[in-house]
């Protein structure tokens, strides 16, 4: 499977994602410079975390006009797997690939910590290696992870089962008491209706190796590989 990691000026988790795909999963991976206007033959695209364009004006607002973005949007619309992590999630929102917007954390402070995530469904290309209801321990690090959308959109997210991860405590309660940033309905990650585009604030690439204190995150990338292999298998049959 071939992954592409898009590098915007100011991306800073690009190398971390690259490392997990290449050295941990041992799959193929390339960097894609934001000034490219075409995507090569990729099976999945990662929009990494960081501070694209310094996060100036609004997170993701400037990056979404990068020359590569029309190709990414096209790739997503054709059903390609796209995962946006942290700043990548913010860019997906600004680009309209996912609904909603990102506000500053309720505390008004950047927060670096480890959060418990509750996996809401496992019938997606990103969570097939996980169980529904399972808890994951995943690092978070963001100043603007306070996900916002209006009531109607939230209703729709719920109706379509688009909420993939919520913040919870160690006992799996995802009530507002265990919400690190104020995001609506404790949302930590959502997918699009079609299920091929994921945006999440937590950083799975930071917990994909034992030496970093946990490996819960690697399951998301492994899920992507599994789902890709299944598609290939189906095509063969």
């Amino acid at each position, binding site marked *: 499977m071939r992954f592409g990691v898009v590098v915007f000026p100011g991306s800073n988790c690009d190398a971390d994602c690259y490392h997990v795909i290449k050295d941990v999963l041992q799959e193929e991976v390339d960097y894609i410079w934001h000034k490219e206007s075409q995507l090569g033959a990729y099976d999945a695209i990662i929009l990494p975390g960081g501070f694209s364009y310094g996060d100036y*004006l*609004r997170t993701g*607002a*400037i990056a979404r*006009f990068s020359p590569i973005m029309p190709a990414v949007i096209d790739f997503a619309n054709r059903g390609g797997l796209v995962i946006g992590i942290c700043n990548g999630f913010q860019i997906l*929102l*600004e680009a309209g690939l996912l*609904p*909603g*917007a990102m*506000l*500053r*954390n*309720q*505390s*008004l402070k950047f927060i670096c910590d480890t959060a418990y995530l509750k996996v809401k469904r496992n019938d997606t290309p990103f969570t097939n290696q996980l169980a529904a209801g399972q808890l994951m321990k995943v690092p978070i690090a963001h100043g603007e992870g*306070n996900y*916002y*959308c*209006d009531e109607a959109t939230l209703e729709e997210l719920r109706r379509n089962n688009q909420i993939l991860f919520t913040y919870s405590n160690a006992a799996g309660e995802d009530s507002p008491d265990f919400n690190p940033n*104020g995001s609506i309905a404790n949302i930590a990650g959502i997918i699009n209706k079609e299920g091929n585009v994921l945006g999440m604030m937590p950083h799975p690439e930071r917990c994909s190796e034992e030496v970093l204190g946990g490996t819960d995150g690697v399951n998301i990338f492994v899920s992507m590989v599994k789902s890709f292999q299944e598609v290939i298998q189906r095509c063969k049959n």
Partner: protein
Amino acid sequence: MLKANVYVTLKEGVLDPQGDAVKKSLHVLEYQGVKEVRIGKFIEVCLESKDKESALRELEEMSDKLLANPVMEDYRVEIVEVE
């Protein structure tokens, strides 16, 4: 040359944690009369253009595309000065 101001404000109903924090601080400083604070952006733009009308249109376009996020923000454009 032409100067314009763009005011970007959070939509009504969108929580403004920063505004709330400032309000609380003002209360601590004993400005009890402060009932609400909302914090938006004040963007000053210098534009090479002679025509107010077309400049206004252009600025509205910029705001729609980049300066404001329609999901959570409103904006208002004002031409202040023409040289």
